[in-house]
């Protein structure tokens, strides 16, 4: 929708991005509502009720977050097509599609971790993975009253969201910075070498994380096998 606004009506870029993001937020509100209604209705034999107040106060916050996401993705696409010098040949909706799929993949792999590992299963000891036996022990009672889906996801949204942003931001930045600094026509080799340097650095950083985790937490004390730590 942002593309339509820009080309057909010559609107300023930021305003078009905001309007397009608003449309995306409305779409996603409908999707979220229909998904909640549908899945709860399909679990009727397990006596799962549909709570309308959950719909009422989770949907606006979902839509707000979708607005922010769409606005940022559209802005990135606009910058890539209109403002950077080796300007991207793909049209804005295609670039937005690719970045949207990427954000979805990153959000699912990075943001999900803290949901289960920290807040939902509180019988898990810090320093080990989640035992399958504890999978059913979802914390349902809160400090006062019951927990609902927003309470469980509270820490994940506060922490997992910015982590997703960091992952996505790293990707977009490292990807585009190389071609902005090194002109792709004459210094293509330098841009590619820079990318390889980033990849190797990230590999080494993960190795360091693994080393540090092993040192800090140590082997599992109940381990009875014969392989040395």
């Amino acid at each position, binding site marked *: 929708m942002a593309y339509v606004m820009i080309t057909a009506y010559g609107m300023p870029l930021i305003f078009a991005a905001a309007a397009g993001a608003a449309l995306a937020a409305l779409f996603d509100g409908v999707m979220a509502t229909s998904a909640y209604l549908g899945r709860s209705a399909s679990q009727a034999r397990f006596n799962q009720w549909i709570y309308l107040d959950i719909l009422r106060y989770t949907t606006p916050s979902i839509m707000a977050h979708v607005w922010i996401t769409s606005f940022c993705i559209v802005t990135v696409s606009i910058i890539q097509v209109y403002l950077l010098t080796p300007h991207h040949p*793909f049209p804005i909706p295609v670039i937005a599609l690719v970045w949207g799929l990427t954000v979805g993949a990153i959000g699912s792999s990075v943001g999900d971790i803290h949901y289960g590992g920290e807040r939902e299963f509180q019988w898990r000891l810090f320093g080990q993975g989640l035992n399958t036996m504890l999978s059913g022990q979802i914390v349902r009672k809160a400090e006062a009253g019951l927990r609902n889906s927003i309470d469980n996801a509270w820490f994940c949204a506060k922490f997992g969201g910015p982590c997703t942003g960091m992952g996505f931001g790293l990707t977009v930045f490292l990807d585009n910075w190389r071609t902005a600094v090194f002109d792709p026509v004459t210094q293509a080799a330098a841009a590619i070498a820079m990318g390889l340097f980033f990849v190797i650095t990230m590999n080494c950083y993960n190795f360091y994380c693994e080393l540090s985790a092993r040192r800090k937490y140590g082997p599992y004390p109940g381990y009875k*096998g014969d392989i040395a730590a």
Partner: protein
Amino acid sequence: MNFGPETIVYLLEIIVGGLLVGIGVHFVPVGGAPAAMAQATGIGTGTVQLAAGSGLTGLLAAGLMMSVTDNIWPILATGAVGAMIMMDATMLTGSWIYAYAVGAPFASAKVNYDPITKFSQPPYVAPGTVGQGIPTVCFVSGTIGAAMGGIGGAMIYYPLVLINGNPAESAIFAIGIFFVNAVLASWNIQGTIEGFHDPKFKKWPKAFKSCLVASAILALVAVLIIPVATSGGV
């Protein structure tokens, strides 16, 4: 329809690109929902979504490169590097959370010693889980998988633009072919895989054959599409 010797080269390029995408999906460490809860090794998302995210980012980078040069090697290299950066950034951010926030040492339950760092794995696998986090071998395997996906996507895109000279149309066409190969390969994996050290990895010949047939048909269709000057009829 003009068939020349280049058409055979284009056909082969698209087929090889599709095969690379299919096999690359097998290298990416995917754990599904259990991995997100620190119950299994790998990244906690679906195979297709991760492969699509990384491969299409590579396609984006390759598209940018293709607008300034026609030489195939920088385009393929840029595609690979773009995809690798996305996959590595995702895995690295996940590793930060696994190591420092959730608090679980990385371990894989499928091997006794990590093939690359020679660390021992079983003492660090918590009981009731099949590993946690992203050990170094999974990280490297994921990088290789992303590189193959990126090169594959760029390889599909390159001959398409040369055939019909329209980057937007070729991009969408390449995305379509990419998705078909990625989903076929992910069906072969049946949900989760840890990388090239996983015993499940030995199933890759099946994906090879499936992607070969599918990509061959798609490549044949792709080379038949040429720019049409005028059109009559309705």
